[in-house]
């Protein structure tokens, strides 16, 4: 028996490259494979100036009004997890993308793909959480759609939400505006969402339950805007791919180098312990309730102070700076004084054996 048997089964990929002829899960990881997928297959086909901004949300002009538009699709498994469910997540994810462009979220649409056999009590809990999140965010869900597919064709519920927001005056954070000398602030502790999901999915019982940080970040962004106004150069919520991927994207889009201090990273004890156990790096773990803010160094303390005044920003911390050296690279200064490059991952983070 040989590789020919594999080929005969139609299950071997064309040598020598690993499967390049079809979608792999890693294409959805937020890492390099995701970026390649966009760059090679999507962007060239839909090329236009608005799409080319590549921010968390697009900024469009309607008459004299400038609006932010963003869309996101949620496929989380399990549907319910400590700290939220797919319904609340679908609201938070999209309003946060608008907030990261400096926009106040106003309207949402929601599209649902429901799997045959989904218990109504699960659907009700998801919709209840979604309604509560909509109310709390002060937005209106103004249009929606439902489709039902055969059992096995979806995983319970898939949700897409699209949001529209109004750009706030004199506040224009953008991923290409980071400049050497900027300080990098994170609004809260990292790694909670990804670890909460993984613990729920794998049935891992940790001593301390870790809750997802899923939350509406607009009030916190507005607080920062009140304190610093137009001085904020970049806002980014490090969701899929974590802080490491978000910072790599900003470094690339702004053409700058980024330096992080390992000792300054706010990583909750239980997240750190879970990552140790699973062989994961918290820098690549998803967040749904924190953002990165780039501000001129002179405003760094003001930014941290303003964020800490809000309940969601109590764990805010200064974690690094933008530098002229090593453009487009994110470098971490380790606790003991060494350095290492924090690269984008090719695909999903894979737990290590040893």
């Amino acid at each position, binding site marked *: *028996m*040989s*590789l020919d*048997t*594999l080929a005969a*089964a*139609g*299950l*071997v*990929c*064309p*040598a*020598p*490259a*690993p*499967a390049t002829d*079809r*979608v*792999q*899960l*890693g294409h959805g990881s937020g890492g*390099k*494979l995701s970026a390649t997928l966009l760059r090679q297959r999507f962007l060239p086909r839909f090329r236009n100036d608005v799409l080319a901004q590549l921010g968390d949300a697009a900024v469009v002009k309607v008459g004299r009004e400038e609006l932010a538009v963003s869309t996101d699709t949620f496929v989380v498994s399990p549907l319910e997890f400590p700290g939220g469910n797919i319904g609340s997540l679908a609201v938070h994810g999209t309003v946060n993308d608008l907030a990261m462009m400096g926009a106040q979220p106003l309207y949402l649409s929601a599209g649902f793909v429901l799997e045959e056999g989904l218990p109504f009590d699960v659907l009700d809990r998801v919709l209840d959480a979604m309604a509560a999140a909509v109310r709390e965010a002060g937005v209106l869900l103004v249009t929606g759609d439902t489709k039902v597919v055969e059992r096995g064709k979806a995983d319970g519920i898939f949700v897409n939400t699209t949001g529209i927001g109004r750009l706030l005056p004199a506040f224009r954070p953008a991923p290409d505006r980071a400049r050497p000398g900027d300080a990098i602030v994170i609004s809260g502790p990292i790694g909670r969402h990804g670890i909460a999901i993984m613990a729920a999915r*794998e049935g*891992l019982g940790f001593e301390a339950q870790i809750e997802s940080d899923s939350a509406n970040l607009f009030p916190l962004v507005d607080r920062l805007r009140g304190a610093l106004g137009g001085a904020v150069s970049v806002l980014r919520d490090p969701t899929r791919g974590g802080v490491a991927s978000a910072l790599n994207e900003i470094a690339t889009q702004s053409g700058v*180098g980024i330096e992080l201090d390992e*000792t300054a990273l706010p990583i909750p*004890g239980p997240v*750190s*312990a879970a990552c*140790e156990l*699973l*062989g994961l790096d918290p820098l690549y773990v998803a967040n749904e309730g924190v953002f990165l803010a780039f501000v001129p160094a002179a405003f760094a303390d003001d930014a941290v102070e303003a964020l800490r005044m809000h309940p969601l920003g109590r764990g805010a911390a200064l974690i690094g700076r933008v530098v002229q*050296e*090593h*453009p*487009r*690279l994110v*470098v971490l200064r*380790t*606790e*003991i*004084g*060494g*350095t*290492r*490059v924090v*690269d984008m991952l*090719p*695909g999903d983070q*894979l*737990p*290590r*054996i*040893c």
Partner: protein
Amino acid sequence: MKYLSEYRDGRVARALVAKIRAAASRPWVLMEVCGGQTHTIVKQGLDELLDGAVEMIHGPGCPVCVTPIEQIDRALHLAARDDVLFTSFGDMLRVPGSACDLLAIRARGGNVRIVYSPLDALELARKHPDRQVVFFAVGFETTAPANAMAVWRARELGVTNFTVLVSHVTVPPAMIALLGSPDNRVQAFLAAGHVCTVMGWTEYEPIAAKYRVPIVVTGFEPVDILEGILMAVRQLEEGRHEVENQYARSVRREGNQPAQDLVSRVFEVVDRKWRGIGEIPRSGLGLRPEFAEFDAERRFGLEGIHASESPLCHAGEVLRGRLKPVECPAFGAQCTPEMPLGAPMVSSEGACAAYYHFGRLRRPASAEV
């Protein structure tokens, strides 16, 4: 975290670096055997801090790197079968076989699942009696007890749809092979702390004596590794060649006897091929004949699958410390972390992947390799 944060203390680590620099009268060449230690060294930038005083060669103790390509191809073959649910530790999924990796097989419809323990794989077998559940039993003496336990439990419970694809290797024969090689550069070893937690260190004593080489059983945190290096450097400077134990909070000389007993009841010593290095006599573990029914190679008739490495890949020379990754002609060109030719480019503890990232830091102009 208690028992962890104190071994990551920056002040203690910097003091140790200064002591190593003061102790080393010339640049010594040390090898850390274990991939977990390589990971810490790279992650914390220890090699950079020690530059000029100690050269660290990254050893062959990364199971991802040394699992032979035939075994990867056999795994791919099994994962592609309709009746098989293939389970593995996560980082084996991106290791390239002859033609692709397990992730690619999954994308093509193969049923591949990441598990955190072989006992989880056994549990899957009990839950899915209609499927053949195969666990990819790779690794060193560290993972062998848990894998032995899974097979033992499977027999106890009478689970008939569970098998293991075994590619276990052991550390001491690899060290002997390295030391016996005419172009060996290694002057002292950091032995792998967790391997020794299971096995103890008696088997290293004859190696230290015969080859006159210091061996320090070492842990995995930055302070552990720096302490281990300091102990090894002091031995070299004083002309000693003993086995010393830095990782005393975990390792005893005789090791973990119940774990060793279980391993030797389920496994026997066999010759084993190491990826990039070749066959090393008596360097692996295989299932004993009385557990043959749990052997995936036998159940699925995989003995006939043979494979060869890409001729472009020089991973073997890298793993033996003969070639720096940057000296490989494929490095950064045909071989990158996204498209690895050899296993050391796959995981963050692989020597090639480590150099790939550091090369980028030293040459920012070529940042977009």
